[in-house]
């Protein structure tokens, strides 16, 4: 085991922990072991990049580099306009998005971990020390990530805006970190209290997706708070702004640097300081009950009734010909629906598929009126939901429970190709179609029924793209047979994935051209259908 610099720094705060009646040496030991174990795993942000699994700090340092790179995003905003409210709210909004996403995807497992209860809670250690170890563990990473993220913007700030500006920003980002940690835990706490048993485990998955979507949407809201007048962003206080945390953090700048003492600004400034502190205080009050409720994750729930009717299954009977294929279709549907590790990796990108089209559609709202949009061709933005197809089809070969795959070897399967075909169909019906349906309903509401043929074309191109993605990634394997961790290892796939995203752009282009031809759309629809039928027949011969 190593000597960790972060722990040495932590040693300075020893008195603080002692006054909180925390057994510092024990906490330090637990942290040392946890950090050692972390070095031996790969953080998710490196998913597509790590070519080989190397032990040691390299992995985490590399991921810090990525955060530093993300930090570049903040730099333009430092120069955007003179309104502190605007600059800071946007910057804090982005930081919140980045840090929270990382917290959810990488550290939810730490927060919700109950596996080591049997190891740690059976030892003579006070629960207070254990929860402290948990939260400090997360805090160490969050501060490293935050540090990397704001490194470049900080340098720029010091040189262009002066040291005071930077110091306020630094204090705010620390407060933000506290707020994010507390907020995430509070959300989980709420869910843990509301649900139990198997349902709870499923819901936690969806919460992770919802949080991810929430931040994307929140960012959009923040941008729209400002009126763009004469090259300048004007801010007007409304009461409901107190509900949007990024706005809080803009106010202290106005207060301290512009001596702006309006009630709104003062109120928001107070919230920027009080909000994080109160949320951390609530967190520390509720932590024991949180740990107690975590137990629910261990409970076995009672018998579940079999669902009498299932839409996806009925569809399956329709689109799968052979008995064997139907069996695999059913199996794949269940895996896609229930396998938690798989869902954790894949569902967030499904959330993106749902959100991206709207983001790009609403971006047009800035310079077009709503009725202009509904007359135009912006409905092509719905294609943005197709860019995740490549990623998800690639992920279909992985599973957290890959060891169960011996059944494929020991059973007499007649047509090997039927297995994967069934899985792809299950993906389309189970995951893709619901997203497209939701999008379609909203788009039809905006653009009227005239776009129905276009929507069908989008769906057909998705089917074709699934087939292409399958050809690109698959090498004669069965689905759900590779360990999820090895999803990181194949670096060459990043290129392929980008290629598949470019393919989506190609589909959009063709669609756009076809729209210029009278009735071309129906011809294109026919051509796509034929390509699909022939293609699927050929590939799965």
């Amino acid at each position, binding site marked *: 085991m190593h000597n960790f610099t972060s722990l040495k720094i932590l040693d300075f705060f020893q008195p603080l922990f002692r006054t909180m009646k925390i057994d510092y040496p024990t906490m330090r030991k637990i942290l040392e072991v946890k950090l050692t174990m972390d070095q*031996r795993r790969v953080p998710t942000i490196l998913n597509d990049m790590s070519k080989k699994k190397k032990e040691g700090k390299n992995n985490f340092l590399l991921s810090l580099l990525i955060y530093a790179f993300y930090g570049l995003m903040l730099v333009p905003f430092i120069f955007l306009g003179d309104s502190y409210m605007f600059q800071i709210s946007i910057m804090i909004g982005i930081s919140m998005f980045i840090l929270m996403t990382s917290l959810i995807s990488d550290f939810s497992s730490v927060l919700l971990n109950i*596996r080591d209860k049997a190891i740690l809670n*059976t030892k*003579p250690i006070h629960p207070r020390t254990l929860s402290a170890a948990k939260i400090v563990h997360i805090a160490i990473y969050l501060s490293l990530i935050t540090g990397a993220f704001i490194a470049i913007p900080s340098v720029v700030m010091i040189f262009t805006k002066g040291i005071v500006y930077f110091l306020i920003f630094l204090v705010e980002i620390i407060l933000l970190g506290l707020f994010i940690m507390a907020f995430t835990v509070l959300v989980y706490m709420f869910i843990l209290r509301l649900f139990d048993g198997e349902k709870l485990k499923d819901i936690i998955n969806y919460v992770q997706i919802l949080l991810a979507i929430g931040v994307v949407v929140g960012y959009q809201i923040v941008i729209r708070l400002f009126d763009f007048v004469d090259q300048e962003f004007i801010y007007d206080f409304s009461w409901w702004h107190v509900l949007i945390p990024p706005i809080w953090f803009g106010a202290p700048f106005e207060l301290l640097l512009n001596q702006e003492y309006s009630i709104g600004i003062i109120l928001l400034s107070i919230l920027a300081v009080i909000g994080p502190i109160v949320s951390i205080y609530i967190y520390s009050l509720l932590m024991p009950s949180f740990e107690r409720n975590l137990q629910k994750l261990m409970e076995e729930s009672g018998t579940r009734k079999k669902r009498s009717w299932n839409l996806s299954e009925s569809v399956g009977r329709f689109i799968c010909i052979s008995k064997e294929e139907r069996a695999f279709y059913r199996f794949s549907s269940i895996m896609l629906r229930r396998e938690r590790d798989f869902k954790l990796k894949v569902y967030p990108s499904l959330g993106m598929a749902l959100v991206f089209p709207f983001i790009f559609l609403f971006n047009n709202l800035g310079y077009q009126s709503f009725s202009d949009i509904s007359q135009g061709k912006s409905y092509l933005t719905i294609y943005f939901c197709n860019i995740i197809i490549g990623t998800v089809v690639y992920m279909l070969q992985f599973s957290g429970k890959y060891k169960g795959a011996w059944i494929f070897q020991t059973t007499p399967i007649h047509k090997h190709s039927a297995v994967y075909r069934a899985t792809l169909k299950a993906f389309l019906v189970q995951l893709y179609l619901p997203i497209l349906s939701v999008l379609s309903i909203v788009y039809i509401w905006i653009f009227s029924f005239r776009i129905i043929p276009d929507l069908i074309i989008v769906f057909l191109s998705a089917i074709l793209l699934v087939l292409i993605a399958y050809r690109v990634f698959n090498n004669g394997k069965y689905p759900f047979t590779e360990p999820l961790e090895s999803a990181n290892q194949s670096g060459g796939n990043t290129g392929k994935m980008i290629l598949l995203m470019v393919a989506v752009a190609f589909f959009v282009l063709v669609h756009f051209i076809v729209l210029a031809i009278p009735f071309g759309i129906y011809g294109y629809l026919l051509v796509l259908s034929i390509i699909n039928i022939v293609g699927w027949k050929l590939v799965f011969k």
Partner: protein
Amino acid sequence: MGNKEKVLSLQNLTMSYSGKNVLTGVNLDVYSGQIIGYIGPNGAGKSTTLKIMLGLINGYGGKVEIFGQDIAISDQSFKQKIGYVPENAEVYDTLTAMEYLTFIGELYGLNREKVEVKAERLLEEFGLHEVMHSRISSFSKGMRQKVLILSSLLHNPDLLFLDEPLSGLDANSVMIIKDLLEELANQGKTIFYSSHIMDVVEKISTRIVLLVNGQIAADGTFDELKEKSKEGSLEGIFNQLTGFDQHKHTAKKVVSIVMEDDDNA
């Protein structure tokens, strides 16, 4: 085993998960030097009892006393003299065997250098010297189990809770563990373990406690149980007391269903 010191006492212990009663009033006193075989059908509440005694589960009814302390109001110190082997081989398997044992020893407040020496010697006795610096994730099930058993012994506990301690171990290792438990009991340690392997329980337990539907259905030495139930083996006693005498019938029925399926194909 002369001095009978009360080590553990359960008084009217009840527990329910989301409305389902798992334990419905368990009363049990355990004295030092006893090897308790805690048996019962699947889902009878054995693991729950163990978890309550270890302070892993709160919200139970009744009273649990360990070493004379009520664990609901005591601080964590009662855990100091307890060793525990969990049932599902939960272990930080990205650590090496050595790192893991050292860590666990330290959590019990042992000095690092001392644990290291102790752990190394113990690993050697269990034939794991070669792999002590390999990660546990590369271990076979039996090797993991050995590490877990060692981790429960490092701090020289007076009370051992073992949940299926023999799972995955080969016949030779099972013999070592059996003798080990006996030797520990001779030294005045108390061992409380649950298992489904009846002939092992029969051979090493000085007292057998049978849990059915969240209540104790039988309690005594093997000979006492034999006398009461007029069955020759613990397996027989188990079947009788859990009210299960259908095994022949069930087996026949299963086979007939299997065969029937064959006709259709």
